[in-house]
């Protein structure tokens, strides 16, 4: 009975992965293309003519800061509020000297002091992470300076 009637497999079943392993690559491609066609036809699209986007050269800004060079809003005269007077000089000078971009950056800490601090800094942090046996390398001098790391003591084989 089963031999008389050919089993008709549904389309979905044929699309399953295990059924396609036996197919050739060409049939696979054909199937894929058909799938894509069905999917793309289902997508909606606007039936409008293509609008050309014009690049606009006009920018809208609602702020007056770009238009007029205005001074800083806080002012103090004849020493009434010294902080505000300092601020006035700072803000108005910054405003005028905006074009000069390569001003030297003021350093809070000078280079020499930075180098000096770094020297001691390396020692203290190194001490923190050194193991107990290595603490001997970080013995402090009379002046309180950390001495540089001495050579590690390895095991010396006794010579017979």
């Amino acid at each position, binding site marked *: 009975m089963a031999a008389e009637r050919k089993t008709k497999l549904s389309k979905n079943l044929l699309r399953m992965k295990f059924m396609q392993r036996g197919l050739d690559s060409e049939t696979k491609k054909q199937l894929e293309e058909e799938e894509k066609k069905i999917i793309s036809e289902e997508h909606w699209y606007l039936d409008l003519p293509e609008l050309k986007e014009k690049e606009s050269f006009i920018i809208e800004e*609602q702020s007056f800061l770009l238009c007029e060079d205005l001074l800083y809003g806080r002012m103090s005269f*004849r020493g009434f509020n010294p902080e505000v007077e300092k601020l006035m000089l700072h803000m108005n000078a910054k405003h005028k000297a905006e074009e000069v971009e390569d001003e030297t950056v003021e350093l809070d800490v000078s280079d020499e002091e930075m180098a000096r601090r770094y020297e001691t800094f390396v020692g203290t942090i190194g001490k923190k992470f050194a193991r107990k046996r290595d603490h001997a390398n970080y013995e402090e001098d009379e002046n309180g300076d950390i001495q540089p790391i001495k050579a590690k003591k390895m095991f010396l084989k006794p010579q017979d």
Partner: protein
Amino acid sequence: MAEAVSVAAESFAGGRARGARSVLGQVVLPGEELLLPEQEDAEGPGGAGERPLSLNAGARSRVRVICGPGLRRCGDRLLVTKCGRLRHKEPGGGGGGGGVYWVDSQQKRYVPVKGDHVIGIVTAKSGDIFKVDVGGSEPASLSYLSFEGATKRNRPNVQVGDLIYGQFVVANKDMEPEMVCIDSCGRANGMGVIGQDGLLFKVTLGLIRKLLAPDCEIIQEVGKLYPLEIVFGMNGRIWVKAKTIQQTLILANILEACEHMTSDQRKQIFSRLAES
């Protein structure tokens, strides 16, 4: 009647698109369209109609133009939305650009704009934010963390009724304006709570811009009278403080009145004050 009006309107719109350069310094009215310089050349001497502009692929002569307050972009032209004088500023920096066009108008009602420094009055304190009245359509919100050196444990000392000098970070027609008292680096730069005493009064917005111009004579003369402190907010509010109440009141009266005085009248008043 209706036909006559419509015909007049058409002729107005069709024939009055002037060039922006030719109208600098003159009074413009809302509804006028202005042509930018490149378009003027393209149109030619006789062209004043609705001819479409042809954009050549090779012509890269279009420069970036910024349209400031009072102007809007309308296609390739500028549309005037406020009445006043048309101004222009050339770009100062090294980069290109066609400069800025704007309308110098006068108004009393302030509309919040991003980046403006304003004086606000704290009206409410709700949770983590303060509600600050800046004279706009709604109160601006100010977070307590937007002060210099403020942390969750270290709150700023701001009470209801205090005056705040700050700037807007968010200010558009769709959202509630937000202001801060700190700049992008985290420094106060003079912003924050304005000190005790003093007097706050309101003037027009145009006067504030006039007083804050780099070469304003009024401020220079006022500064020579006696020691004083002034804070200008772009929302039309000025706060003044001097040593005595009388001096403060004189100062407030001068600043309010100087809008409508000629320079001679002003000099007279200053000389009288200097004598007394």
